[in-house]
């Protein structure tokens, strides 16, 4: 397919790998975090780690929307779906995320709850129009990429004066999470995670642009390179990061120039600003309570806010104590460090959120990476 296949050329990837090998300073160590789950997936799927020199390591970040949703929010959605009048609509990934006591939306559906998987927020609006007797709630999650879609659905519902459509909003913000990681004790005091630079998200940046990253580059002196999701994009971004580190620079650069503009998508940002406002804080799986990291509906759209309509009281809940998703999301541990990985926790029966979505570090490693582990052990 045009604009995709060209960026998957294996021959070019190998020569880029040679360019990277030439660029690295053999006496130095390079550790880069790819924030976004899309990149985690690409790195695993195309085996990019095998193409990198041994002193260049990639640390998987928390940019997988399904992974960072805390158990308490899943529990709240399940309780909501169990209400007789409610039809809960959501993206497919969320169906299998475990809440407390191993309960999932899929199991709640099997037990009789009216839960429907949708591909777009507009499908949920359509259901609300077609079934006026049902209280249709859209269980909204995601970073800046999915938030505009939710904003448009709320505005459409308002235009049509729908009284049976609401949104259970769990939208979160990328810059807040990056800042949280950089300020975390793991990075700052304990030194358990060293990060020399970031690969900035692809689709998120099409919306917010490259400007929001300037703060991290300056304040924390970390280079950020926004990259596309194809393997050559990621390789080139790694090369750009290495060059910046070698030259002692910490700037925001854009590898994904074919899709990302410095200012992002003005229309999408305006839609989001119209409907949503910042929450004072929001809980993330792995990162804990992060200030000003989540969104909620503005007062003007309160009628479309499921948390208000159904008086959803948020109660934090504990992860499975053996599950290492939290540490994996902070970059402290790797999937294979978790004793649940590949034993009782697989994509078919996930115990933790990182095993659910294809963007999750554990699912990506299970699907692609574990075979390399075996080769490595055998050799």
């Amino acid at each position, binding site marked *: 397919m*045009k604009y995709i296949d*060209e*960026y998957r050329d294996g021959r070019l990837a190998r020569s880029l790998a040679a*360019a990277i090998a*030439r660029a690295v300073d053999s006496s130095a160590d390079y550790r880069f975090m790819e924030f976004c789950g899309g990149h985690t997936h690409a790195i695993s799927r195309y085996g990019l780690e095998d193409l990198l020199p041994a002193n260049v390591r990639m640390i998987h970040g928390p940019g997988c929307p399904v992974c960072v949703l805390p158990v308490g929010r899943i529990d709240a959605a399940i309780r909501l779906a169990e209400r007789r009048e409610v039809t809960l609509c959501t993206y497919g990934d969320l169906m299998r995320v475990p809440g407390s006591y191993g309960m999932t939306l899929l199991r709640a559906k099997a037990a009789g709850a009216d839960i429907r998987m949708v591909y777009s*927020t507009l499908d949920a609006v359509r259901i609300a129009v077609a079934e006026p007797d049902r209280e249709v709630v859209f269980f909204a999650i995601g970073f800046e990429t*999915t938030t505009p879609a939710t904003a448009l659905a709320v505005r459409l519902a308002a235009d049509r004066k729908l009284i049976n459509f609401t949104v259970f909003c769990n939208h979160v913000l990328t810059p807040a999470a990056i800042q949280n990681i950089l300020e975390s004790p793991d990075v700052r005091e304990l030194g358990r995670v060293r990060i020399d630079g970031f690969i900035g998200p692809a689709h998120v940046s099409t919306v917010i642009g490259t400007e929001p990253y300037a703060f991290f580059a300056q304040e924390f002196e970390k280079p950020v390179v926004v990259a596309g999701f194809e393997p050559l994009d990621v390789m080139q971004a790694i090369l750009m990061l290495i060059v910046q580190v070698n030259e002692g620079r910490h700037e925001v650069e854009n590898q994904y120039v074919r*899709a990302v503009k410095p200012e992002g998508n003005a*229309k999408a940002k305006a839609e989001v600003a119209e409907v949503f406002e910042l929450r004072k804080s929001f809980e993330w799986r792995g990162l804990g309570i992060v200030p000003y990291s989540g969104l909620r509906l503005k007062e003007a759209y309160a009628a479309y806010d499921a948390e208000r309509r159904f008086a959803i009281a948020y109660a934090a809940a504990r992860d499975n104590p053996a599950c290492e998703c939290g540490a994996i999301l902070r970059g402290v541990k790797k999937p294979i460090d978790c004793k649940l990985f590949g034993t009782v926790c697989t994509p078919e029966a996930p115990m933790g959120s990182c095993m659910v979505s294809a963007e999750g570090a554990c699912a990506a490693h299970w699907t692609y990476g574990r075979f390399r582990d075996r080769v490595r052990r055998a050799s």
Partner: protein
Amino acid sequence: LVPDANVGDYVVVHVGFALTKIDAEGARRTLALLAEAGAAAGAVP
């Protein structure tokens, strides 16, 4: 979300919505850079 999109344009679609247009010039420039980086590396034994 991309008001200036026309028939024949390539767009990045996320959960059913176009987020941005693919800029042909930007795409070409990236490929040229990649080829250049590859060629430079290839010249070294």
